[in-house]
């Protein structure tokens, strides 16, 4: 009996040490998937309950945050009863080139200055929220949670090339949103507009 209690306490101690500290990160990921704070709360709760119940399967010393993100993603898919996404035909290299073209146009019209804006956060949040899944979750994992392409691919259950192409497309789409926001905020310059027509 005492042994079992000790092992339970040991489980709780390791769970407290390795899993609990990532709750903010899991919440952010869940929020990016669901775009709804109530749904995100449900997903986080399910993630942690599943993680706790299957804690014996977690390999000590491995990346617990990555493990939790995977559980979170699966919990989200179950909640939406999603079928597997089809692998879309997006060319990562073409997206990277398009991104640079978009930036060139931003330089021309002066909207590239938006990155120096102190209140860029809300505009970026909107641009990210406007992304469709599966693009949003890739940005969340790679750009916000600093996961590698390989880790994101593992968490999302897709090839690395798919992570890359989705990420680059998502960044380009956000660039376009930021550019529109910058224009609305009056950042586009008249002189720049003239130059763009030369």
């Amino acid at each position: 009996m005492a042994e079992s209690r000790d092992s339970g306490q040991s489980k709780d101690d390791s769970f407290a040490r390795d899993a609990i500290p990532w709750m903010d990160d899991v919440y952010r990921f869940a929020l990016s998937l669901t775009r709804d704070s109530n749904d995100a709360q449900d997903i986080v709760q399910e993630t942690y309950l599943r993680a706790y119940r299957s804690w014996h399967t977690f390999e000590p010393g491995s990346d617990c945050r990555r493990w939790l993100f995977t559980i979170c993603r699966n919990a989200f898919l179950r909640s939406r009863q999603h079928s597997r996404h089809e692998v879309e035909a997006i060319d990562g290299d073409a997206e990277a080139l398009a991104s640079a073209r978009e930036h060139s146009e931003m330089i021309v019209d002066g909207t590239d200055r938006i990155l120096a804006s102190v209140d860029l956060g809300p505009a970026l949040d909107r641009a990210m929220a406007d992304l469709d899944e599966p693009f949003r979750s890739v940005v969340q994992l790679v750009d916000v949670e600093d996961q590698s392409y390989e880790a994101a691919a593992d968490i999302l259950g897709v090839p690395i090339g798919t992570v890359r192409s989705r990420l680059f497309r998502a960044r380009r789409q956000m660039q376009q949103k930021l550019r529109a926001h910058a224009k609305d905020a009056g950042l586009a310059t008249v002189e720049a507009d003239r130059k763009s027509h030369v």
Partner: protein
Amino acid sequence: MSDEPRAIDCRTAVQQLWDYLDDELNDARMVEVRHHLLTCKSCLPHAEFGRLFIQALSRARERHVMPPAVRSQVMAALAEAGYSSESPG
């Protein structure tokens, strides 16, 4: 004889720019892109913009923190499942 990295053109550099900024290229490719950016006035602004863009996105971590009430609810659900956050003794 020369230790100069293989020269790449602007198109190749830009195609690999996001991978470079994400530190996802192998060592040789990282050196090639870095070398190109050091010597190309056209591509460097794209790299600087990309770097700032990614930095701005990463700051979402600071903006989005889980509300304390949500944390309390999750912890309560875990407690119901048998989890105890209190250390013995």
